[in-house]
């Protein structure tokens, strides 16, 4: 919510200034230059330009979000057992970041990192990724966070999410000094793997057992608490749906 307001203000603040200038021109033309109603027609064109430009802008922004979905779909094509995983981790990460009181930018980064934390898998041979289901883990698999950051490195708008993508795996394994977004994504990822994706063989844990398992890994208690809150919030949202 806070994030939406911030984006909206950034996007429209400049716009209003421009619209004010257009309104001023119209007053001058209509009243002082005595053009009368013709002024409206003349001023209409700049208004259309402004409108057009903002619409194009919005369309491209939407395209950006959609293209990210393709990236997630690519992960799921590579690793079908992870279907829906990225979306769930993104949602939990966002709620957790909000609960921990992060700034709107950081909340967005955490969500994005949650969504894209597995992107590195796509650059591994399919065999390596899918064999994890059979319990075989190749050493190459552990490199996926680094591969992910390398793939996304050129994208400026993801710069804030990269550290979390790179270190979430380490953060999920135990106490660490990595950025809070990484600890968030790491915990959310681990929780979803335990409760929904399941171990090779398909066994999943009930939510409370999964949380206990994370406590046993000595993850940050603050982060665990945020995770509990996020899970409860998601359940609430689901029953409301």
């Amino acid at each position, binding site marked *: 919510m806070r994030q939406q307001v911030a984006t909206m203000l950034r996007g429209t603040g400049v716009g209003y200034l421009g619209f004010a200038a257009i309104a001023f021109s119209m007053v001058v033309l209509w009243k002082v230059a005595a053009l009368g109603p013709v002024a409206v027609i003349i001023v209409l064109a700049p208004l259309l330009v402004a409108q057009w430009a903002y619409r194009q802008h919005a369309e491209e922004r939407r395209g950006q979000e959609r293209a990210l979905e*393709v990236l997630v779909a690519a992960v799921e094509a590579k690793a079908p057992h992870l279907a829906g995983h990225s979306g769930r981790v993104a949602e939990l990460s966002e709620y957790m970041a909000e609960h921990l009181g992060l700034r709107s930018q950081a909340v967005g980064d955490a969500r994005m990192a949650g969504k894209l934390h597995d992107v590195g898998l796509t650059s591994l041979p399919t065999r390596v990724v899918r064999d994890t289901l059979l319990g075989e883990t190749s050493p190459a698999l552990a490199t996926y966070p680094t591969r992910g950051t390398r793939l996304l490195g050129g994208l400026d708008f993801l710069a804030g999410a990269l550290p979390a993508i790179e270190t979430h795996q380490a953060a999920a394994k135990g106490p660490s000094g990595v950025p809070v977004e990484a600890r968030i994504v790491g915990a959310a990822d681990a929780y979803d793997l335990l409760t929904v994706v399941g171990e090779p063989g398909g066994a999943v844990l009930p939510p409370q057992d999964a949380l206990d398992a994370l406590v046993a890994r000595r993850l940050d208690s603050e982060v665990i608490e945020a995770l509990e809150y996020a899970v409860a919030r998601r359940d609430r949202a689901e029953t409301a749906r």
Partner: protein
Amino acid sequence: MKPVATRPFAVVVLAAGIGLVVAALVMDGPDLATLVSTHERMLLIFVGVVALGELLPLRMPSGRETAPLAMVSGLAVAFVGPIEGEPLFAVGTRLVLLVVAAGLGVAAIVRRVRGRHARLPSLAARLVGVSVAAFLARSWGEEGHTLWALQQAPATKGLVAGLMTLVAALAVLLELVLVSALRAERQRTPWLSAVRDELTEAAPITLAVVVTGPMVALMAPVLGLLALPAALVPLVMAYSAVGQYARNRRTNRQLIATLSRLTEAGGYTPNQHAERVAELSVRIGRVVGLGDRELRDIEYAALLHDLGQISLRDPIPDGATVLAAPADQRDIASEGARIIRHAETLATVATYVEGQTTPFRLVREHGEEVPMASRIIKCANAYDDLTGGSSGPERHEAAMERIHLGLGYEYDPEVVDALTRVVGNSAVGRVGKEPAPSR
């Protein structure tokens, strides 16, 4: 820039521009001194703004550059009469022309000094456009009843505003047609599609250019020279909005390019293969006259044409789909399309990717509808697979020979023809002087 001899139209436009300036100098040269001393401040500002507009071109998301600010300022000079706090700008068409030419000339010199192309033909096109407007406003009709003279009569203000807009529209349209013809000649692409792109991509900007010139003239009697910045605000707004739009578009393209690298990083496709196919496809697309939107989609589809390989358990040899069995090719293409369809905004792109494996024979014999974009990607992909991205003459000839074997059966002859022209000359189908739609 190509040698002039290969660009007859550019020579014609340039000659027209130079002719206008020389004629004006010969006939009105002696009046120049009076003009400069009477309207010193105003001239300085207008020449400056014309030059500035020319030096700050607006880069459209498609990579085309336009100079709306220069055109607007030129039109303002053509129409302006009374200016609050300044002497009445009562000069003839030819002196208006010289003022605008001075601004354009300054821009050309600055560009040259900075080691860039002066782009004289486009400047000449702008001059021709403004001259037509100035002529219609100042010399057309009886003495005292020209459009320019009428703007001082309070009773007909509304009518004058309408007529000025009409004249400006005519001038802008002329400039636009000339500029796109110049571009089409430079890129060897169909002229009509260049005009259509110019009109559709920049339509609202063009509209703003048309009304802003008259706006300056109409507000000047009240606001004086301040009318210029006041009227230009919306245009500046459009500049920043278009800039933002272009940035977003670049980000989107980067994102798609990232997707195209997934299979490369996994060792499924050769490095830079997708980028090369995209560049080739876009250039072929321009040559066959595709519009801006289609070109964007063809670029994205070409970048993603091998995405389906991501689900392959093992890489195919060299990632070269042209050598894979037809059924495998189809599977890869439809898997790619399935992944791309997760973004509903990319539905067209997915269709293009899906169609890339259909042989042209099915289009010809069974009337199957395969988008032109898919046929282009099919051909560009085959060329790059067969040459392995090398530009050596032997690989090139072997690849073209193999493609020609499938002419009409596998590949669309029109596309193969365009491919031949594109790989034969690096200027064909390119926008601007950049080597490639890089990044």
